[in-house]
């Protein structure tokens, strides 16, 4: 049975996550979707705003999904899958998780990536962040959670564009500096074609276009995003050691890393790597390069880490590995 794609919708309080989700669920393309919503506080309210539908909607109450109820999230997703397997409940083909406005998406992604029960049944499809066109800039200034949500996203949905123009008020440029690779989509009252939010993936070569990362005149004070590029193949050991050092020393400063890597030992078959902080998927190997550019391209989203340091570290490790292998 094919793995069920799971997407996470995040975004700060009032940024329109539920409105977007409610609108998306009306799209026939998402007709067979199970939804897990999470509210902060004793009484869950957000799910009441999601119109009654045929989809399976499960509410997690009693805490933030990134903190106290992470175990509940894993259990809930597991229960959904178990019911589906025996033909009980809705026969969904996708799971969407809506986080609270204060949630850090990183632990949620890590939970999905590492839980052994869910591992074979789910595949992480997309992280979507909603940003309020009118209040987004002020929110980014005041709340680090919102910065992290936008920085981690695969796609950013700017909402309430009927109230304010994100291009005119500088929000669009700011989000681009924060997360150059994430397409910025707009939604008024949640209206957005679902096909623009789901699908695609980490093997999309457009994600790794180095030109995206060249001009960052208005970069955020703490988040830096850059693309490490190598023309020569990397040894597998170098890549492993590089990720090991990053995981060991950078901790929460490494928000997300995704890359297409030309591995010396696997000519013509690039590795796709993806990690959230210190947790990585096992690398996947493509049958062929997805475009004409066969260079290694690793996109790194960090909290205050230095691109030059990563470049130097990668080179230094490769020097050492080469020296040891030639010995």
């Amino acid at each position, binding site marked *: 049975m094919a793995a069920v794609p799971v997407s996470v919708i995040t975004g700060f309080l009032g940024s329109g996550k539920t409105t977007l989700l409610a609108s998306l669920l009306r799209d026939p393309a998402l007709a067979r979707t199970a939804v897990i919503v999470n509210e902060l506080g004793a009484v869950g309210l957000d799910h009441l705003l999601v119109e009654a539908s045929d989809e399976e909607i499960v509410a997690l109450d009693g805490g933030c999904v990134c903190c106290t109820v992470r175990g509940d999230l894993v259990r809930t997703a597991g229960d959904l899958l178990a019911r589906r397997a025996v033909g009980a409940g809705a026969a969904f083909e996708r799971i969407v998780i809506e986080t609270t406005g204060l949630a850090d998406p990183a632990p949620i992604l890590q939970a999905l990536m590492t839980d052994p029960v869910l591992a074979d049944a789910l595949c992480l499809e997309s992280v979507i962040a909603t940003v309020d066109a009118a209040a987004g800039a002020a929110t980014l200034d005041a709340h680090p959670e919102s910065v992290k949500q936008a920085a981690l996203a695969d796609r950013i949905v700017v909402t309430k564009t009927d109230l304010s123009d994100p291009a005119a008020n500088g929000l669009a440029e700011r989000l681009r500096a924060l997360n150059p690779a994430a397409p910025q989509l707009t939604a008024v009252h949640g209206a957005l074609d679902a096909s623009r939010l789901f699908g695609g993936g980490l093997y999309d070569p457009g994600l790794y276009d180095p030109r995206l990362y060249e001009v960052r005149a208005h970069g955020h004070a703490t988040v830096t995003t850059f693309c490490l590029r190598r023309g020569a193949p990397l040894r597998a050991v170098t890549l492993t050691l590089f990720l090991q050092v990053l995981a*060991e020393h950078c901790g929460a400063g490494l928000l997300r890393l995704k890359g297409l890597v030309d591995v010396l030992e696997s000519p013509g078959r690039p590795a796709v790597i993806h990690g959230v902080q210190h947790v990585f998927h096992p690398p996947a190997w493509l049958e062929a390069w997805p475009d004409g550019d066969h260079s290694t391209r690793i996109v790194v989203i960090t909290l205050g880490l230095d691109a030059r340091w990563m470049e130097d570290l990668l080179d230094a490790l490769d020097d050492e590995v080469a020296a040891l292998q030639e010995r």
Partner: protein
Amino acid sequence: MIPVMQYDPAWHARILRVFSCALRIWGVPGTVSRDPDDPDGFVVAPNTGPAMRVRHKAPAGWTVTLRDPAPGAQAPLGRHVGLPGLLRRLRAELAPDAPAGRLVIGAQPLLGRDLGGR
């Protein structure tokens, strides 16, 4: 015997930056400089506490010693095959309370089986 420099200036500059930035990541104020007594060595000097001498031994391998803790003596701290072990040692000595992570490879395949992965 006079030590002979094995590496070019680009290598020295690169390693210097790796160490300097690592200090910043660990939150350790200090400096990193070339070792005047060893053409392929470095001195890592925190603002407080003893400095360390980091020496490279070609083709790969590092030794760490406390720099002159007493006249005529150097306290060896460790030998390491590569930079990962060396950085771990430096962090343990200079910033024992700095958060240390661990690479976790999750169980979930990166690409769904229907998305072209294997």
